[in-house]
């Protein structure tokens, strides 16, 4: 049955490099998430409160991000934009692609969060004499963040997993690095198995950290 000899030695030798690449993965995912949260919040507010072109801009962004494959979006930012003479480095391609995608998904989460806050909460705040800015920043947004916290965590996990597409646009995060080593030594299975373990660990760390953070942030 096992007509295949495993060679683990080269993999172990390049383990430090792979772990290093794991940090690159974490870094790109965090960066994309940060941009995604900021843009997603704006898109959600635009979709809910604006009319005309701004609203349609937000709707278009959100729907394209949610209804086409992430890999497609990456290709678009890679070779698609290249046709316009806009050339992004692999790092920028993966960052814009991931942020674009995350922003679309997060925008919908935010929208759901805003809609889940009873109108009475705003009314209560207004009745105390707060103006609408105060009511939004002090009462609504903190509660929305609480509601979307777990969706954001999930999205962060997604961002980590999706960053593996970097390998297909020539960016050397964990998958790209793994593929590079694998192509040198042809030990594809061994290398990708180790990469899988590292991804698993990263995901668990992300989830653990978010749980710890939640415990500090939300005491209610």
């Amino acid at each position: 049955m096992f007509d295949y000899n495993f060679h683990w030695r080269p993999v172990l030798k390049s383990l430090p490099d792979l772990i290093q690449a794991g940090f690159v993965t974490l870094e790109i995912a965090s960066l994309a998430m940060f941009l995604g949260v900021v843009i997603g919040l704006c898109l959600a507010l635009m979709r809910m409160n604006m009319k005309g072109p701004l609203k349609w801009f937000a709707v278009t962004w959100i729907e394209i991000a949610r209804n086409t494959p992430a890999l497609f979006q990456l290709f678009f930012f890679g070779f698609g934009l290249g046709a316009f003479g806009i050339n992004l480095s692999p790092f920028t391609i993966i960052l814009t692609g991931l942020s674009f995608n995350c922003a679309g998904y997060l925008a919908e989460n935010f929208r759901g969060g805003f809609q889940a806050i009873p109108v009475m909460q705003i009314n209560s705040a207004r009745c105390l004499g707060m103006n609408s800015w105060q009511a939004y920043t002090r009462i609504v947004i903190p509660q929305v963040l609480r509601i979307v916290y777990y969706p954001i965590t999930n999205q962060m996990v997604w961002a980590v997993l999706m960053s593996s597409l970097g390998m297909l646009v020539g960016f050397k995060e964990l998958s790209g690095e793994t593929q590079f080593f694998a192509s040198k030594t042809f030990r594809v299975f061994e290398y990708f198995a180790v990469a899988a373990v590292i991804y698993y660990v990263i995901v668990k760390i992300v989830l653990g950290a978010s749980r710890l953070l939640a415990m500090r942030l939300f005491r209610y």
Partner: protein
Amino acid sequence: MQEPISFFTGFNPNDLWFLGEAALKTLWISILSITIGSVMGCVFGWVLHESKSVAGIILAPILDVFRSVPLLIQLVLFYNFAPMVGLDLNPFLSGVVILTFYTASLVTNVARGGIESVETSMRRASRSLGLTYWQDLYHVVLPIGGRTVFPAWIGVVLGVMKDSALVSVLGYVELLKASQILITRTQEPLLILSIAGAFYFALSYPISLYASKFEKRWAK
């Protein structure tokens, strides 16, 4: 000595047919893995709900791995692993196997959520009418819980359909791979990516629209 033949030819209507065929392949691989995966996921979800201790200890972590390792890595790993144990799987079958398990791992959570969304008092009510356990599950839990999590399930379906684009790394000529091939040959990235994107959008958007309508209708 002959003239070298021309290797690059422009976009022709034939290529639309080529893309269309590839879109059908995307659809086919998605339908196959979503169907099998959903059935498996429902069974797993039920197992996890019913026996929180025994099966959960084995099943839950295994399913968790499918959710914590990038699909891309899973595909490459499995594609390279299968022949080692004597399975001669082509890219299509490898893709189906991994996408199926991936779907199942996602649907498991959905299904468990569905079962748990049916309040105990509802289940007690049906049992108190004399319905057996299985009658209760089939006539009460399935329709009521199923409806609650239907939008979540649609989310999984759309996700898997989009993620099926990753099977292209195994060389399966689905929609995205086909467009890559055409880009290579015709050097018209923008046109071809737009067509592929439109295909995906046309597949995904109406379904997601329907799901959110459905959700609104039952939100009452």
